[in-house]
């Protein structure tokens, strides 16, 4: 049967029409591809607009089109739009093909003649291909209403609470002993300076006690299988050596434990905890964990002080790691960030010069519940600084480290300036490259700190040193910097330096991303589906990203994303079933020789080997149509629906204009 094909060439305003002669392309298609079945070729200003779509729908009905080619933007953007239009007009949506003449032509060329010629080739390829397209039916599968949230920082807590409040089960998995994330370490939060614990703790408690939230702390996801609506997740619950059923969180074990350990995580190395501990007083859950590496009993075989004093016999030295298997329909990743390691900027002296502090150390120092009870003092634990230098952009906006802006460090530097001022009356200098105080009431906070008398030096700090050149520098840290506003080099002696270090992707973001089937940007942050229009979804259906895992951001934005993702999850849950793209691979049993080359390759574990028949088989519910096995099968026994050899070869022939009738 000869197909009846409609070709629609979009102007995309001037996006395409500015570089491609769209009228010429349409006329050419009508004339040169007529023998292939093109019965109508039109150009239109905005194909994706309602009138544009109606044009297609009308032609399908009136001209009896059996195939449609839309030459417009990337399929990424509008494939769905045009497939839906076809469906509305009664044509199988998979008989529509998008020819990208925007991303692949007009945006990458400037010569109109060349761009027009290339557009013709791209359209010709799409026409040849669409002839080979087969009608496909979407596969509907039920959605498991449970959700997994990974990471219990503010973003993850927000997402978990919203979903749970809507009445659905959430598994909240947190790697550390307590939820709370970075926010739990802060004393005050910019720009309003409300107490971090005061606003965070109620949320943590709510998450910890919510009937719909299963909290799994001291736990990590170790395996993910399945697909949207039907993920199967294995979680490793690390041994706490505390029986959670019996423990009341009285804290006696911590009190009695003789072993003090420097707390590198929560206290950023400034304070101590015990070998059995809860990281902070408001921890949720409030039962402790035992740190096997440091516990005297585990090292020497004697002690058990905690066991002796525990009133409920909750200490269990024999506890083992436990693997928990759950089924969920959607996954929200809220794994947050790591702090940039300030040691890497060796000229700022962190780790070498005692009175150089990192931002997170300063947070603990200024925290009323911290190791100095909120007294801002030098490393000796008692001297109050008389002058403090705060250096912005440490590790950020710097080609040697991270190119990106960490978003929060300017505001964080201003917050520190305010706190130092308020608590010590010291002279404060902030060294900045550009002041970034966008967002609501942020610049007002900057004005406030200016008025408080903080001195601002615009320029990149070259060095922090203790090598005094002048008498006033003796015993001080000297900040050597360019002052670009004054146009000179300056040396400013201070007692204390705070490095406003940037945010970094989690050290294990790549592996975690891989496990959940999502990718990372070149900087290492999880990649969203669309940077503007779909910031919390990912290219993997049913996997969402929120908070700093997606990129540096402040608390309000993290919370907003948590809520946004929960709306997306609820939307999916309420639909009850999900239509899976029918783009799947299938194995032709006659052609499969059971060589088993494909068996270990499927990232979704969709391929099984049937030993009795000596053939391999693909589970269509698990297959995501990635094409890995299709490429690998040496016998050519596997075919990817929607990407058959016939389609691809036809498209290549079309691109090379081999489909034109000989003149």
């Amino acid at each position: 049967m000869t197909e009846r094909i409609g070709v629609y060439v979009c102007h995309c305003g001037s996006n395409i029409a500015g570089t491609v002669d769209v009228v010429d392309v349409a006329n050419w298609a009508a004339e040169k591809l007529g023998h292939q079945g093109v019965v109508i070729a039109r150009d239109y200003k905005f194909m994706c607009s309602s009138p544009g779509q109606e044009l297609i729908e009308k032609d399908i009905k009136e001209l009896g089109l059996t195939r449609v080619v839309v030459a417009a933007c990337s399929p990424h953007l509008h494939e769905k739009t045009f497939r839906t239009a076809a469906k509305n007009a009664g044509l199988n949506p998979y008989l529509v093909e998008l020819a990208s003449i925007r991303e692949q032509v007009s945006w990458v060329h400037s010569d109109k003649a060349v761009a027009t010629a290339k557009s013709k080739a791209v359209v010709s390829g799409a026409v040849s291909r669409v002839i080979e397209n087969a009608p496909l039916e979407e596969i509907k599968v039920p959605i498991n209403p449970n959700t997994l949230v990974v990471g219990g920082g503010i973003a993850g807590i927000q997402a978990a609470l919203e979903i749970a409040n809507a009445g659905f089960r959430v598994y909240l998995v947190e790697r550390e002993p307590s939820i709370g994330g970075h926010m739990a370490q802060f004393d005050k939060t910019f720009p309003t300076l409300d107490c971090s614990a005061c606003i965070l703790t109620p949320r943590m408690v709510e998450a910890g006690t919510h009937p719909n939230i299963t909290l799994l702390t001291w736990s990590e996801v170790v395996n993910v299988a399945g697909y949207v609506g039907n993920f199967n997740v294995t979680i490793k619950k690390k041994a706490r050596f505390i029986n959670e059923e019996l423990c009341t969180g009285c804290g006696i074990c911590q009190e009695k434990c003789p072993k003090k350990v420097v707390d590198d995580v929560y206290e950023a190395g400034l304070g101590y905890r015990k070998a059995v501990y809860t990281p902070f007083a408001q921890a949720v859950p409030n039962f402790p964990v035992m740190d096997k590496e440091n516990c005297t009993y585990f090292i020497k075989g004697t002690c058990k002080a905690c066991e002796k004093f525990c009133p409920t016999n909750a200490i269990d030295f024999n506890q083992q790691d436990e693997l928990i298997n759950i089924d969920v329909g959607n996954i929200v990743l809220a794994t947050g960030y790591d702090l940039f390691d300030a040691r890497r900027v060796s000229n700022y002296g962190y780790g070498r010069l005692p009175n150089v502090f990192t931002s997170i150390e300063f947070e603990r120092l200024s925290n009323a519940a911290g190791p100095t009870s909120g007294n801002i003092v030098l490393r000796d634990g008692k001297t109050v600084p008389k002058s403090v230098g705060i250096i912005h952009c440490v590790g950020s906006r710097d080609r040697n480290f991270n190119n990106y802006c960490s978003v929060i460090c300017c505001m964080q530097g201003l917050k520190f300036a305010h706190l130092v001022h308020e608590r010590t009356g010291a002279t404060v200098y902030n060294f900045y490259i550009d002041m970034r105080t966008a967002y609501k009431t942020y610049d007002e906070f900057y004005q406030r700190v200016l008025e408080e008398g903080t001195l601002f030096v615009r320029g990149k700090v070259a060095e922090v040193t203790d090598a005094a050149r002048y008498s006033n520098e003796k015993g001080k840290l000297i900040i050597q910097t360019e002052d670009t506003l004054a146009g000179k080099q300056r040396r400013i002696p201070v007692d204390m330096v705070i490095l406003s270090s940037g945010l970094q992707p989690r050290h294990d973001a790549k592996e975690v991303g891989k496990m959940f089937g999502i990718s990372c940007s070149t900087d290492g942050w999880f990649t969203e589906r669309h940077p503007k229009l779909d910031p919390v979804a990912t290219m993997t259906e049913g996997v969402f990203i929120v908070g700093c895992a997606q990129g540096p951001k402040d608390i309000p934005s993290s919370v907003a994303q948590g809520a946004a993702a929960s709306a997306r999850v609820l939307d999916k849950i309420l639909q009850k079933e999900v239509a899976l793209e029918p783009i799947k691979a299938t194995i032709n049993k006659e052609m499969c020789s059971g060589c088993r080359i494909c068996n270990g390759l499927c990232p979704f574990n969709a391929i099984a080997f049937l030993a009795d028949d000596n053939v391999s088989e693909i589970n269509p519910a698990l297959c995501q149509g990635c094409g890995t096995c299709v490429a690998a099968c040496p016998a050519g026994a596997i075919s990817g629906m929607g990407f058959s050899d016939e389609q691809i070869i036809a498209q290549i022939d079309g691109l090379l204009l081999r489909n034109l009738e000989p003149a």
Partner: protein
Amino acid sequence: MTVNGGKPKFAMYWAASCGGCEIAVLNTHEKILDVDANFDVVFWPVAMDAKYKDVEAMEDGSILLTLFNGGIRNDENEHLAKLLRQKSKILVAFGSCACEGCIPGLANLSPVGDIVHTAYNTITTDNPNEIYPRATYDVPEGELHIPTLAKVLRPLEQVVDVDYFMPGCPPESHQIAAVIDLVIKVVKGEAELPPKGTVIGAGDSTVCDECPRARNVKSIKEFKRIQDIAPVDPDLCLLEQGIPCNGPATRSGCDARCPGAGAQCIGCYGPAEGVMDYGARLITAFSSVIDATTPEEIDRILDGIPDPTGQVYRFNLAGSLLKANRDAWKVK
């Protein structure tokens, strides 16, 4: 199928080939007598004397069956291919050279000048006066012509229309016998010919399908030559032992003779039914199952295949999707 005027006519010709295909036909033993009993052999240079002009004189389409082996490497090959096409009802590309170019096709990687130079300057060829063959040569008796080499070797199908393809280097004798039986049956009206373009005398799966060796999920840490492995596990898939076996992409039909005998499949039965480009299929399959995490490790493992082209295109270069019959070395 009815044939008027006596026994149907049979021809067999060798173009650029080694002669093994002819031997394979003779190797059908007593079956060859059936050929003689049922056919009138009109042209078969290896077995009987015949002149090209005799063939030229025949009526078009008067030969029922021609088995054409060898690729098209020179103008003589091309002339005979066109001539026999014209004279034959059924033209079979017989053996790997005619089907896909085979070993002679590997020479498509080199320009003709290099090929000739190499052929006349090997260790065993003393050529101090730099004497090379010429297309024409004057002798007292007149002008002599020898065939001119084409730029590349082409499989038969790239030169003339082909009815059937019979792969193998050479085709297995039992497969030849079965095909002869079939044609005889067709002549007697007892069977139908398969559709034009069919691959005959072979299976439609792969060598692995017929291979008795046990296989598992593969993960290859190292490729080795078979002689460098001691001992080779007699029951386990060779590929899993790191020996690059071409069985997974190669058409079945040989009863997996090589892997059965302890040697890797080198691919003489050509691409399996679903394989569009043999070499591309194999190299993606091999690379899919190597167990490496770093680019360096990938390089190290793949370096274990010292001649990738020879490994994955040993028989199929001229017939590959890339069509190495194009003047590849001239492409800028």
